[in-house]
Protein backbone atom coordinates (compact mmCIF):
# COMPACT_ATOMS: atom_id res chain seq x y z
CA UNK A 1 0.00 0.00 0.00
CA UNK A 2 2.99 2.27 0.32
CA UNK A 3 2.84 2.80 -3.43
CA UNK A 4 -0.31 4.86 -2.94
CA UNK A 5 0.68 8.17 -1.50
CA UNK A 6 -1.77 9.85 0.88
CA UNK A 7 -1.97 13.60 0.70
CA UNK A 8 -3.30 15.48 3.70
CA UNK A 9 -4.51 19.08 3.66
CA UNK A 10 -2.54 21.86 5.28
CA UNK A 11 0.88 23.24 4.69
CA UNK A 12 1.53 26.72 3.31
CA UNK A 13 2.92 27.91 6.64
CA UNK A 14 4.15 31.22 5.25
CA UNK A 15 0.83 32.07 3.60
CA UNK A 16 -0.95 31.22 6.83
CA UNK A 17 1.47 33.28 8.87
CA UNK A 18 1.17 36.27 6.50
CA UNK A 19 -2.62 36.11 6.62
CA UNK A 20 -2.68 35.76 10.39
CA UNK A 21 -0.54 38.87 10.74
CA UNK A 22 -2.63 40.81 8.19
CA UNK A 23 -5.93 39.85 9.81
CA UNK A 24 -4.58 40.67 13.26
CA UNK A 25 -3.53 44.12 12.05
CA UNK A 26 -6.70 44.80 10.04
CA UNK A 27 -8.81 43.73 13.02
CA UNK A 28 -6.99 46.16 15.26
CA UNK A 29 -7.23 48.84 12.55
CA UNK A 30 -11.02 48.40 12.42
CA UNK A 31 -11.05 48.91 16.19
CA UNK A 32 -8.86 51.99 15.77
CA UNK A 33 -10.90 53.43 12.90
CA UNK A 34 -14.09 53.03 14.94
CA UNK A 35 -12.56 55.42 17.47
CA UNK A 36 -10.85 57.79 15.06
CA UNK A 37 -13.05 58.03 11.98
CA UNK A 38 -16.53 59.57 12.13
CA UNK A 39 -17.88 57.59 9.19
CA UNK A 40 -16.76 54.24 10.64
CA UNK A 41 -18.09 55.30 14.04
CA UNK A 42 -21.48 56.08 12.49
CA UNK A 43 -21.54 52.77 10.63
CA UNK A 44 -20.94 50.85 13.87
CA UNK A 45 -23.50 52.92 15.77
CA UNK A 46 -26.14 51.92 13.24
CA UNK A 47 -25.37 48.21 13.73
CA UNK A 48 -27.23 46.12 16.32
CA UNK A 49 -26.30 45.94 20.01
CA UNK A 50 -23.24 43.69 20.57
CA UNK A 51 -22.84 43.30 16.80
CA UNK A 52 -20.03 40.87 15.98
CA UNK A 53 -18.59 39.89 12.61
CA UNK A 54 -15.86 37.60 11.38
CA UNK A 55 -13.73 37.50 8.26
CA UNK A 56 -12.47 34.01 7.71
CA UNK A 57 -11.11 31.50 5.20
CA UNK A 58 -12.79 28.11 4.81
CA UNK A 59 -12.46 25.43 5.98
CA UNK A 60 -10.22 26.30 8.93
CA UNK A 61 -8.03 29.11 7.62
CA UNK A 62 -7.01 32.30 9.38
CA UNK A 63 -9.80 34.45 10.80
CA UNK A 64 -10.47 37.69 12.58
CA UNK A 65 -13.40 38.65 14.80
CA UNK A 66 -14.48 42.20 15.57
CA UNK A 67 -17.46 43.24 17.64
CA UNK A 68 -19.11 45.79 19.85
CA UNK A 69 -19.04 45.22 23.60
CA UNK A 70 -21.82 45.91 26.08
CA UNK A 71 -21.09 49.65 26.00
CA UNK A 72 -20.96 49.81 22.19
CA UNK A 73 -17.16 50.05 22.08
CA UNK A 74 -15.67 48.30 19.05
CA UNK A 75 -13.00 45.70 19.80
CA UNK A 76 -10.83 43.29 17.91
CA UNK A 77 -11.83 40.00 19.53
CA UNK A 78 -9.17 37.66 18.26
CA UNK A 79 -9.09 34.95 15.63
CA UNK A 80 -11.53 32.33 16.81
CA UNK A 81 -15.00 32.93 15.30
CA UNK A 82 -16.38 29.85 17.06
CA UNK A 83 -16.10 31.64 20.40
CA UNK A 84 -18.70 34.28 19.54
CA UNK A 85 -22.31 34.45 18.34
CA UNK A 86 -21.79 36.12 14.95
CA UNK A 87 -24.20 38.51 13.24
CA UNK A 88 -22.24 38.43 9.98
CA UNK A 89 -19.63 36.02 8.71
CA UNK A 90 -17.68 36.81 5.55
CA UNK A 91 -16.05 33.60 4.36
CA UNK A 92 -13.47 33.26 1.62
CA UNK A 93 -13.82 29.81 0.12
CA UNK A 94 -10.12 29.03 0.53
CA UNK A 95 -6.94 30.39 2.07
CA UNK A 96 -5.75 31.12 -1.48
CA UNK A 97 -8.79 33.38 -2.04
CA UNK A 98 -8.06 35.21 1.20
CA UNK A 99 -4.45 35.55 0.10
CA UNK A 100 -5.57 37.13 -3.19
CA UNK A 101 -7.63 39.61 -1.20
CA UNK A 102 -4.86 40.46 1.25
CA UNK A 103 -2.17 40.77 -1.34
CA UNK A 104 -4.47 43.34 -2.97
CA UNK A 105 -4.62 41.53 -6.27
CA UNK A 106 -8.38 41.31 -5.93
CA UNK A 107 -10.99 43.61 -4.41
CA UNK A 108 -13.78 42.47 -2.11
CA UNK A 109 -16.23 43.14 -4.94
CA UNK A 110 -14.27 41.00 -7.40
CA UNK A 111 -13.90 38.21 -4.85
CA UNK A 112 -17.69 38.24 -4.44
CA UNK A 113 -18.25 38.34 -8.19
CA UNK A 114 -15.87 35.42 -8.72
CA UNK A 115 -17.75 33.30 -6.20
CA UNK A 116 -14.81 33.30 -3.83
CA UNK A 117 -16.56 35.06 -0.97
CA UNK A 118 -19.89 34.29 0.61
CA UNK A 119 -21.84 36.00 3.32
CA UNK A 120 -23.83 34.55 6.17
CA UNK A 121 -26.05 36.78 8.27
CA UNK A 122 -27.99 39.98 7.65
CA UNK A 123 -27.24 41.50 4.27
CA UNK A 124 -27.64 45.18 5.25
CA UNK A 125 -25.19 44.55 8.11
CA UNK A 126 -22.81 42.74 5.74
CA UNK A 127 -22.91 45.74 3.39
CA UNK A 128 -21.97 47.99 6.32
CA UNK A 129 -19.05 45.68 7.22
CA UNK A 130 -17.74 45.85 3.63
CA UNK A 131 -17.99 49.67 3.68
CA UNK A 132 -16.05 49.72 6.96
CA UNK A 133 -13.36 47.39 5.61
CA UNK A 134 -13.04 49.57 2.50
CA UNK A 135 -12.43 52.66 4.63
CA UNK A 136 -9.90 50.79 6.76
CA UNK A 137 -8.05 49.69 3.64
CA UNK A 138 -7.80 53.31 2.51
CA UNK A 139 -6.25 54.15 5.89
CA UNK A 140 -3.78 51.30 5.81
CA UNK A 141 -2.65 51.23 2.19
CA UNK A 142 -0.86 53.67 -0.08
CA UNK A 143 -3.19 55.09 -2.74
CA UNK A 144 -1.94 52.99 -5.71
CA UNK A 145 -2.44 49.77 -3.71
CA UNK A 146 -5.74 50.84 -2.16
CA UNK A 147 -7.10 51.58 -5.64
CA UNK A 148 -6.67 47.90 -6.46
CA UNK A 149 -8.53 46.85 -3.32
CA UNK A 150 -11.61 49.07 -3.57
CA UNK A 151 -13.88 50.20 -6.38
CA UNK A 152 -13.36 53.95 -6.02
CA UNK A 153 -10.70 55.78 -4.06
CA UNK A 154 -12.48 58.36 -1.90
CA UNK A 155 -11.91 62.10 -1.97
CA UNK A 156 -11.24 62.89 1.66
CA UNK A 157 -10.23 66.10 3.37
CA UNK A 158 -6.53 66.59 4.04
CA UNK A 159 -6.94 65.98 7.79
CA UNK A 160 -8.49 62.59 7.17
CA UNK A 161 -5.76 61.60 4.75
CA UNK A 162 -2.96 62.69 7.06
CA UNK A 163 -3.77 63.05 10.77
CA UNK A 164 -6.55 60.45 10.93
CA UNK A 165 -4.52 58.04 8.83
CA UNK A 166 -1.53 58.40 11.16
CA UNK A 167 -3.73 57.95 14.23
CA UNK A 168 -5.49 54.88 12.87
CA UNK A 169 -2.16 53.23 12.08
CA UNK A 170 -0.68 54.22 15.44
CA UNK A 171 -3.74 53.01 17.36
CA UNK A 172 -3.68 49.75 15.39
CA UNK A 173 -0.05 49.19 16.36
CA UNK A 174 -0.52 49.91 20.05
CA UNK A 175 -3.96 48.30 20.16
CA UNK A 176 -5.92 51.28 21.41
Amino acid at each position, binding site marked *: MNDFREITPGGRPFTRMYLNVMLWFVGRAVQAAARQDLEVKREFEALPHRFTFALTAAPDGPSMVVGKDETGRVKYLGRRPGDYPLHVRL*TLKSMEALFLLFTFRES*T*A*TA*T*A*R*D*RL*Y*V*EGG*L*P*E*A*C*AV*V*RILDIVQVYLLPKPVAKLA*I*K*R*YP*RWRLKRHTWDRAMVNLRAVIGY
Partner: protein
Amino acid sequence: MRLPDYYEFCCRVKIVAGHDALEKIPALLGALHAARPMIITDRGVAGAGLLDVVVGALQDGIVIGAVADEVPSDSDFKVVRRLAKVYQQKDCDAIVAVGGGSVMDTAKGVNILVSEGGDDLMAFTGAGALKKRLKPLVAVPTTAGTGSEVTLVAVIADHEKNLKIPFTSYFLLPDIAVIDSRMTLTLPDVITSQTAMDALCHAVEAYTCLAKNPVSDACALEAISLIAGNLLKVMKTPADRDGRLALATAATLAGMAFSNSMVGMVHTLGHSVGAVCQVPHGTCMAVLLPYGLEYNMHKNGEEAGELLFALAGDAVFARTPRDRRAKQTVASIRALNQDLYEVTGGRHPRCLGEVTGPDGKIRVPRARLPEIARVALGDASIFYNPEALDEDDLLMVLEAAWEGIPLDPARIRKG
Protein backbone atom coordinates in the same frame (compact mmCIF):
# COMPACT_ATOMS: atom_id res chain seq x y z
CA MET B 1 -16.17 39.80 -24.58
CA ARG B 2 -14.00 39.90 -21.47
CA LEU B 3 -13.47 36.41 -20.05
CA PRO B 4 -13.32 36.25 -16.25
CA ASP B 5 -10.36 34.35 -14.82
CA TYR B 6 -12.81 32.24 -12.85
CA TYR B 7 -16.57 31.75 -12.92
CA GLU B 8 -19.29 29.37 -11.81
CA PHE B 9 -22.55 28.58 -13.56
CA CYS B 10 -25.18 26.12 -12.43
CA CYS B 11 -28.71 25.58 -13.69
CA ARG B 12 -29.80 22.00 -13.23
CA VAL B 13 -33.46 22.71 -14.00
CA LYS B 14 -35.07 20.77 -16.82
CA ILE B 15 -36.95 23.27 -18.97
CA VAL B 16 -40.07 22.12 -20.80
CA ALA B 17 -41.62 24.82 -22.97
CA GLY B 18 -44.40 25.01 -25.51
CA HIS B 19 -48.05 25.74 -26.17
CA ASP B 20 -49.07 22.46 -24.54
CA ALA B 21 -46.23 21.86 -22.10
CA LEU B 22 -48.51 21.40 -19.06
CA GLU B 23 -49.75 18.08 -20.39
CA LYS B 24 -46.24 16.67 -20.01
CA ILE B 25 -46.20 17.16 -16.22
CA PRO B 26 -47.63 13.71 -15.26
CA ALA B 27 -44.96 11.91 -17.31
CA LEU B 28 -42.24 14.22 -16.00
CA LEU B 29 -43.31 13.55 -12.41
CA GLY B 30 -43.44 9.84 -13.15
CA ALA B 31 -39.82 9.98 -14.22
CA LEU B 32 -39.05 11.46 -10.81
CA HIS B 33 -40.99 8.61 -9.13
CA ALA B 34 -43.78 10.91 -8.00
CA ALA B 35 -47.47 10.23 -8.52
CA ARG B 36 -49.41 12.43 -6.10
CA PRO B 37 -48.42 16.11 -6.33
CA MET B 38 -49.70 18.99 -4.26
CA ILE B 39 -50.50 22.12 -6.28
CA ILE B 40 -49.53 25.38 -4.58
CA THR B 41 -50.85 28.62 -6.04
CA ASP B 42 -52.58 31.86 -5.08
CA ARG B 43 -56.12 33.21 -5.38
CA GLY B 44 -55.19 35.51 -8.26
CA VAL B 45 -54.02 32.60 -10.38
CA ALA B 46 -57.08 30.56 -9.41
CA GLY B 47 -59.39 33.52 -10.09
CA ALA B 48 -57.91 34.05 -13.54
CA GLY B 49 -58.82 30.47 -14.42
CA LEU B 50 -55.20 29.35 -14.76
CA LEU B 51 -55.51 26.77 -11.98
CA ASP B 52 -58.32 25.11 -13.94
CA VAL B 53 -56.06 24.93 -17.00
CA VAL B 54 -53.32 23.24 -14.95
CA VAL B 55 -55.72 20.85 -13.21
CA GLY B 56 -57.29 20.01 -16.58
CA ALA B 57 -53.88 19.24 -18.04
CA LEU B 58 -52.85 17.07 -15.09
CA GLN B 59 -55.92 15.20 -13.96
CA ASP B 60 -56.07 12.71 -16.79
CA GLY B 61 -52.60 11.46 -16.04
CA ILE B 62 -52.16 11.73 -12.30
CA VAL B 63 -53.89 12.02 -8.90
CA ILE B 64 -53.62 15.54 -7.48
CA GLY B 65 -53.17 15.04 -3.75
CA ALA B 66 -54.12 18.56 -2.68
CA VAL B 67 -54.71 22.01 -4.12
CA ALA B 68 -53.73 25.01 -1.96
CA ASP B 69 -54.61 28.40 -3.41
CA GLU B 70 -54.04 30.54 -0.33
CA VAL B 71 -50.49 31.83 -0.83
CA PRO B 72 -50.42 35.53 0.10
CA SER B 73 -48.68 38.15 -2.06
CA ASP B 74 -45.79 38.10 0.42
CA SER B 75 -44.74 34.51 1.25
CA ASP B 76 -44.96 33.79 4.95
CA PHE B 77 -43.55 31.33 7.53
CA LYS B 78 -46.99 30.48 8.91
CA VAL B 79 -48.39 29.66 5.49
CA VAL B 80 -45.35 27.53 4.71
CA ARG B 81 -45.81 25.54 7.93
CA ARG B 82 -49.55 25.09 7.33
CA LEU B 83 -49.07 23.93 3.73
CA ALA B 84 -46.31 21.53 4.80
CA LYS B 85 -48.80 19.88 7.19
CA VAL B 86 -51.39 19.63 4.42
CA TYR B 87 -48.78 18.00 2.17
CA GLN B 88 -48.03 15.38 4.82
CA GLN B 89 -51.66 14.74 5.79
CA LYS B 90 -52.67 14.31 2.15
CA ASP B 91 -49.73 11.96 1.58
CA CYS B 92 -48.35 13.95 -1.36
CA ASP B 93 -44.99 13.14 -2.91
CA ALA B 94 -44.22 16.20 -5.08
CA ILE B 95 -45.08 19.89 -5.43
CA VAL B 96 -46.36 21.75 -8.48
CA ALA B 97 -46.02 25.51 -7.92
CA VAL B 98 -48.21 27.62 -10.19
CA GLY B 99 -47.71 31.37 -9.92
CA GLY B 100 -45.21 34.17 -9.54
CA GLY B 101 -42.35 34.82 -7.14
CA SER B 102 -44.30 34.49 -3.89
CA VAL B 103 -45.84 31.16 -4.86
CA MET B 104 -42.44 29.82 -5.95
CA ASP B 105 -40.81 30.96 -2.71
CA THR B 106 -43.61 29.45 -0.63
CA ALA B 107 -43.38 26.15 -2.54
CA LYS B 108 -39.61 26.07 -1.95
CA GLY B 109 -40.18 26.70 1.78
CA VAL B 110 -42.79 23.93 1.95
CA ASN B 111 -40.38 21.63 0.13
CA ILE B 112 -37.70 22.27 2.76
CA LEU B 113 -40.03 21.28 5.60
CA VAL B 114 -41.58 18.22 3.95
CA SER B 115 -38.18 16.94 2.82
CA GLU B 116 -36.16 17.69 5.95
CA GLY B 117 -38.94 17.22 8.53
CA GLY B 118 -39.91 19.38 11.50
CA ASP B 119 -41.44 22.84 11.31
CA ASP B 120 -38.45 25.07 12.04
CA LEU B 121 -37.59 26.79 8.76
CA MET B 122 -34.94 28.91 10.48
CA ALA B 123 -32.80 25.80 10.93
CA PHE B 124 -32.26 25.81 7.17
CA THR B 125 -31.00 29.34 6.59
CA GLY B 126 -27.36 30.01 5.81
CA ALA B 127 -24.92 28.51 3.35
CA GLY B 128 -24.79 24.73 3.34
CA ALA B 129 -27.77 24.24 5.66
CA LEU B 130 -29.54 22.03 3.12
CA LYS B 131 -27.47 18.93 2.48
CA LYS B 132 -29.66 16.60 0.44
CA ARG B 133 -32.01 16.57 -2.49
CA LEU B 134 -35.55 17.70 -1.72
CA LYS B 135 -38.90 16.33 -2.99
CA PRO B 136 -39.66 16.84 -6.70
CA LEU B 137 -40.68 20.43 -7.43
CA VAL B 138 -42.27 21.52 -10.70
CA ALA B 139 -42.44 25.27 -11.30
CA VAL B 140 -45.09 26.69 -13.61
CA PRO B 141 -44.61 30.47 -13.90
CA THR B 142 -47.68 32.57 -14.62
CA THR B 143 -45.81 35.77 -15.39
CA ALA B 144 -42.96 36.28 -17.82
CA GLY B 145 -40.57 38.19 -15.62
CA THR B 146 -39.22 36.95 -12.30
CA GLY B 147 -37.36 33.90 -13.59
CA SER B 148 -37.84 32.30 -10.16
CA GLU B 149 -38.58 28.97 -11.86
CA VAL B 150 -34.81 28.67 -12.40
CA THR B 151 -33.41 30.38 -9.32
CA LEU B 152 -31.95 28.85 -6.17
CA VAL B 153 -33.26 31.45 -3.75
CA ALA B 154 -36.42 31.70 -1.68
CA VAL B 155 -37.24 34.76 0.39
CA ILE B 156 -39.84 34.06 3.05
CA ALA B 157 -41.18 36.61 5.51
CA ASP B 158 -41.41 36.01 9.23
CA HIS B 159 -44.16 38.52 9.88
CA GLU B 160 -44.04 37.95 13.65
CA LYS B 161 -40.45 39.20 13.75
CA ASN B 162 -40.91 41.54 10.78
CA LEU B 163 -38.01 39.91 8.91
CA LYS B 164 -37.51 38.63 5.39
CA ILE B 165 -35.36 35.52 5.55
CA PRO B 166 -33.40 34.43 2.47
CA PHE B 167 -32.80 30.73 1.81
CA THR B 168 -30.13 29.88 -0.75
CA SER B 169 -29.16 26.42 -1.91
CA TYR B 170 -28.75 24.53 -5.16
CA PHE B 171 -31.26 22.07 -3.66
CA LEU B 172 -33.90 24.83 -3.93
CA LEU B 173 -33.68 24.84 -7.71
CA PRO B 174 -36.91 23.33 -9.06
CA ASP B 175 -36.48 19.99 -10.83
CA ILE B 176 -38.56 21.10 -13.79
CA ALA B 177 -39.72 24.48 -15.12
CA VAL B 178 -42.79 24.21 -17.33
CA ILE B 179 -43.20 27.22 -19.61
CA ASP B 180 -46.62 27.17 -21.23
CA SER B 181 -47.98 30.06 -23.29
CA ARG B 182 -51.47 29.54 -21.84
CA MET B 183 -50.21 30.70 -18.45
CA THR B 184 -49.44 34.23 -19.66
CA LEU B 185 -51.99 34.59 -22.46
CA THR B 186 -54.44 36.60 -20.36
CA LEU B 187 -51.95 38.79 -18.52
CA PRO B 188 -53.15 42.43 -18.49
CA ASP B 189 -51.10 44.80 -20.65
CA VAL B 190 -49.41 46.71 -17.84
CA ILE B 191 -48.40 43.49 -16.07
CA THR B 192 -47.04 42.19 -19.38
CA SER B 193 -44.92 45.31 -19.88
CA GLN B 194 -43.71 45.46 -16.26
CA THR B 195 -42.73 41.80 -16.08
CA ALA B 196 -41.01 41.86 -19.47
CA MET B 197 -39.00 44.90 -18.42
CA ASP B 198 -38.10 43.04 -15.23
CA ALA B 199 -36.76 40.19 -17.36
CA LEU B 200 -34.95 42.65 -19.65
CA CYS B 201 -33.34 44.20 -16.61
CA HIS B 202 -32.20 40.79 -15.33
CA ALA B 203 -30.56 40.09 -18.68
CA VAL B 204 -28.96 43.52 -19.11
CA GLU B 205 -27.54 43.59 -15.58
CA ALA B 206 -26.34 39.98 -15.82
CA TYR B 207 -24.44 40.98 -18.98
CA THR B 208 -23.00 44.25 -17.71
CA CYS B 209 -22.23 43.70 -14.01
CA LEU B 210 -19.19 42.27 -12.26
CA ALA B 211 -20.10 38.59 -12.09
CA LYS B 212 -20.80 38.18 -15.82
CA ASN B 213 -19.54 35.01 -17.45
CA PRO B 214 -19.73 33.54 -20.97
CA VAL B 215 -22.54 31.08 -20.20
CA SER B 216 -24.80 33.64 -18.54
CA ASP B 217 -23.92 36.10 -21.33
CA ALA B 218 -25.32 33.68 -23.91
CA CYS B 219 -28.57 33.36 -21.95
CA ALA B 220 -28.77 37.13 -21.42
CA LEU B 221 -28.26 38.04 -25.09
CA GLU B 222 -30.93 35.60 -26.28
CA ALA B 223 -33.33 36.86 -23.62
CA ILE B 224 -32.82 40.48 -24.72
CA SER B 225 -33.30 39.56 -28.35
CA LEU B 226 -36.56 37.72 -27.61
CA ILE B 227 -37.93 40.59 -25.53
CA ALA B 228 -36.94 43.26 -28.06
CA GLY B 229 -38.53 41.27 -30.88
CA ASN B 230 -41.76 40.33 -29.14
CA LEU B 231 -42.77 42.72 -26.37
CA LEU B 232 -44.43 45.43 -28.44
CA LYS B 233 -45.96 42.81 -30.72
CA VAL B 234 -47.59 41.10 -27.73
CA MET B 235 -48.71 44.42 -26.26
CA LYS B 236 -50.57 45.15 -29.49
CA THR B 237 -51.80 41.57 -29.99
CA PRO B 238 -52.20 40.02 -26.52
CA ALA B 239 -53.46 36.70 -27.88
CA ASP B 240 -50.23 36.14 -29.84
CA ARG B 241 -49.32 32.68 -28.49
CA ASP B 242 -45.90 32.56 -30.11
CA GLY B 243 -45.07 36.01 -28.79
CA ARG B 244 -46.21 35.02 -25.28
CA LEU B 245 -44.07 31.89 -25.39
CA ALA B 246 -41.10 33.95 -26.58
CA LEU B 247 -41.49 36.38 -23.65
CA ALA B 248 -41.87 33.53 -21.15
CA THR B 249 -38.78 31.84 -22.58
CA ALA B 250 -36.90 35.14 -22.37
CA ALA B 251 -37.83 35.48 -18.69
CA THR B 252 -36.51 31.98 -18.00
CA LEU B 253 -33.28 32.67 -19.88
CA ALA B 254 -32.85 35.95 -18.04
CA GLY B 255 -33.47 34.08 -14.78
CA MET B 256 -30.74 31.60 -15.67
CA ALA B 257 -28.41 34.49 -16.47
CA PHE B 258 -28.95 36.64 -13.39
CA SER B 259 -29.11 33.78 -10.89
CA ASN B 260 -25.52 33.02 -11.89
CA SER B 261 -24.21 36.51 -12.67
CA MET B 262 -26.29 38.47 -10.19
CA VAL B 263 -27.55 42.02 -10.73
CA GLY B 264 -26.35 45.53 -9.93
CA MET B 265 -27.55 49.00 -9.03
CA VAL B 266 -30.85 48.92 -10.93
CA HIS B 267 -31.94 46.22 -8.51
CA THR B 268 -30.21 47.95 -5.59
CA LEU B 269 -32.41 50.99 -6.17
CA GLY B 270 -35.44 49.07 -7.42
CA HIS B 271 -35.65 46.90 -4.31
CA SER B 272 -35.50 49.99 -2.15
CA VAL B 273 -38.10 51.98 -4.11
CA GLY B 274 -40.34 48.92 -3.85
CA ALA B 275 -39.73 48.49 -0.12
CA VAL B 276 -40.20 52.14 0.82
CA CYS B 277 -43.02 53.12 -1.56
CA GLN B 278 -44.61 49.74 -2.50
CA VAL B 279 -44.03 50.22 -6.21
CA PRO B 280 -44.28 47.04 -8.35
CA HIS B 281 -40.82 45.61 -9.01
CA GLY B 282 -41.16 45.63 -12.80
CA THR B 283 -42.09 49.30 -12.83
CA CYS B 284 -38.96 50.18 -10.86
CA MET B 285 -36.84 48.10 -13.23
CA ALA B 286 -38.28 49.74 -16.36
CA VAL B 287 -37.70 53.26 -15.05
CA LEU B 288 -34.26 52.68 -13.53
CA LEU B 289 -32.63 50.48 -16.17
CA PRO B 290 -31.38 53.33 -18.41
CA TYR B 291 -29.90 55.04 -15.36
CA GLY B 292 -27.96 51.96 -14.29
CA LEU B 293 -26.38 51.79 -17.74
CA GLU B 294 -25.61 55.52 -17.82
CA TYR B 295 -24.04 55.48 -14.36
CA ASN B 296 -21.71 52.58 -15.15
CA MET B 297 -20.96 53.47 -18.76
CA HIS B 298 -17.36 54.55 -18.12
CA LYS B 299 -16.73 51.09 -16.65
CA ASN B 300 -18.83 48.77 -18.83
CA GLY B 301 -19.61 50.82 -21.94
CA GLU B 302 -18.13 48.10 -24.14
CA GLU B 303 -20.56 45.50 -22.79
CA ALA B 304 -23.49 47.93 -22.88
CA GLY B 305 -22.65 48.67 -26.52
CA GLU B 306 -22.64 44.97 -27.37
CA LEU B 307 -26.26 44.75 -26.22
CA LEU B 308 -27.35 47.03 -29.04
CA PHE B 309 -27.26 44.14 -31.51
CA ALA B 310 -29.78 42.14 -29.48
CA LEU B 311 -31.88 45.18 -28.60
CA ALA B 312 -32.12 47.06 -31.88
CA GLY B 313 -31.05 44.59 -34.53
CA ASP B 314 -28.14 44.23 -36.91
CA ALA B 315 -28.90 47.29 -39.06
CA VAL B 316 -28.86 49.74 -36.15
CA PHE B 317 -25.82 48.02 -34.66
CA ALA B 318 -23.91 48.21 -37.94
CA ARG B 319 -24.63 51.86 -38.61
CA THR B 320 -23.81 52.99 -35.07
CA PRO B 321 -20.12 53.77 -34.51
CA ARG B 322 -18.59 51.58 -31.85
CA ASP B 323 -18.02 54.42 -29.38
CA ARG B 324 -21.69 55.43 -29.58
CA ARG B 325 -23.26 52.01 -29.18
CA ALA B 326 -23.55 52.13 -25.38
CA LYS B 327 -25.41 55.46 -25.57
CA GLN B 328 -27.60 54.05 -28.33
CA THR B 329 -28.40 51.05 -26.09
CA VAL B 330 -29.64 53.45 -23.43
CA ALA B 331 -31.60 55.38 -26.04
CA SER B 332 -33.19 52.15 -27.30
CA ILE B 333 -34.36 51.23 -23.79
CA ARG B 334 -35.76 54.73 -23.28
CA ALA B 335 -37.53 54.44 -26.64
CA LEU B 336 -38.99 51.08 -25.58
CA ASN B 337 -40.28 52.65 -22.37
CA GLN B 338 -41.80 55.48 -24.43
CA ASP B 339 -43.50 52.98 -26.77
CA LEU B 340 -44.87 51.07 -23.77
CA TYR B 341 -46.09 54.34 -22.26
CA GLU B 342 -48.03 55.08 -25.43
CA VAL B 343 -49.39 51.59 -26.01
CA THR B 344 -50.70 51.40 -22.41
CA GLY B 345 -52.26 54.87 -22.57
CA GLY B 346 -49.76 56.29 -20.07
CA ARG B 347 -50.01 53.47 -17.51
CA HIS B 348 -46.41 52.33 -18.06
CA PRO B 349 -44.47 55.11 -16.32
CA ARG B 350 -41.27 56.57 -17.81
CA CYS B 351 -39.98 58.12 -14.59
CA LEU B 352 -40.53 57.71 -10.85
CA GLY B 353 -42.55 60.94 -10.75
CA GLU B 354 -45.11 59.33 -13.07
CA VAL B 355 -45.67 56.26 -10.88
CA THR B 356 -49.14 56.46 -9.37
CA GLY B 357 -51.18 54.18 -7.13
CA PRO B 358 -54.74 52.93 -7.71
CA ASP B 359 -55.99 56.20 -6.19
CA GLY B 360 -54.11 58.22 -8.81
CA LYS B 361 -51.75 59.73 -6.23
CA ILE B 362 -47.99 59.88 -6.75
CA ARG B 363 -46.51 56.68 -5.32
CA VAL B 364 -42.93 57.93 -4.91
CA PRO B 365 -43.02 61.35 -3.21
CA ARG B 366 -39.81 63.23 -4.01
CA ALA B 367 -39.29 63.89 -0.30
CA ARG B 368 -38.79 60.15 0.27
CA LEU B 369 -35.86 59.80 -2.13
CA PRO B 370 -33.22 60.27 0.64
CA GLU B 371 -34.86 57.47 2.64
CA ILE B 372 -34.81 55.22 -0.44
CA ALA B 373 -31.11 55.98 -0.96
CA ARG B 374 -30.33 55.05 2.65
CA VAL B 375 -32.21 51.75 2.42
CA ALA B 376 -30.44 50.96 -0.87
CA LEU B 377 -27.05 51.01 0.86
CA GLY B 378 -28.02 47.74 2.57
CA ASP B 379 -28.91 45.83 -0.59
CA ALA B 380 -26.41 43.10 -1.46
CA SER B 381 -26.72 43.67 -5.21
CA ILE B 382 -24.61 46.82 -4.70
CA PHE B 383 -21.55 44.49 -4.44
CA TYR B 384 -21.96 43.45 -8.07
CA ASN B 385 -22.26 46.93 -9.54
CA PRO B 386 -19.18 47.94 -11.54
CA GLU B 387 -18.92 51.46 -10.09
CA ALA B 388 -19.03 52.30 -6.39
CA LEU B 389 -22.17 53.89 -4.98
CA ASP B 390 -22.55 55.86 -1.79
CA GLU B 391 -25.65 57.59 -0.46
CA ASP B 392 -25.00 60.77 -2.49
CA ASP B 393 -24.58 58.80 -5.73
CA LEU B 394 -27.79 56.85 -5.11
CA LEU B 395 -29.69 60.06 -4.39
CA MET B 396 -28.31 61.73 -7.51
CA VAL B 397 -29.53 58.82 -9.66
CA LEU B 398 -32.92 58.76 -7.91
CA GLU B 399 -33.41 62.51 -8.46
CA ALA B 400 -32.77 62.13 -12.19
CA ALA B 401 -35.00 59.04 -12.41
CA TRP B 402 -37.75 60.90 -10.58
CA GLU B 403 -37.67 63.73 -13.09
CA GLY B 404 -37.04 61.47 -16.07
CA ILE B 405 -33.95 63.32 -17.24
CA PRO B 406 -30.68 61.64 -18.30
CA LEU B 407 -27.82 61.56 -15.80
CA ASP B 408 -25.39 64.43 -15.98
CA PRO B 409 -22.06 62.71 -16.81
CA ALA B 410 -20.18 65.44 -14.93
CA ARG B 411 -21.87 64.37 -11.68
CA ILE B 412 -20.83 60.73 -11.96
CA ARG B 413 -17.77 60.14 -9.78
CA LYS B 414 -15.48 57.72 -11.52
CA GLY B 415 -13.45 55.16 -9.63
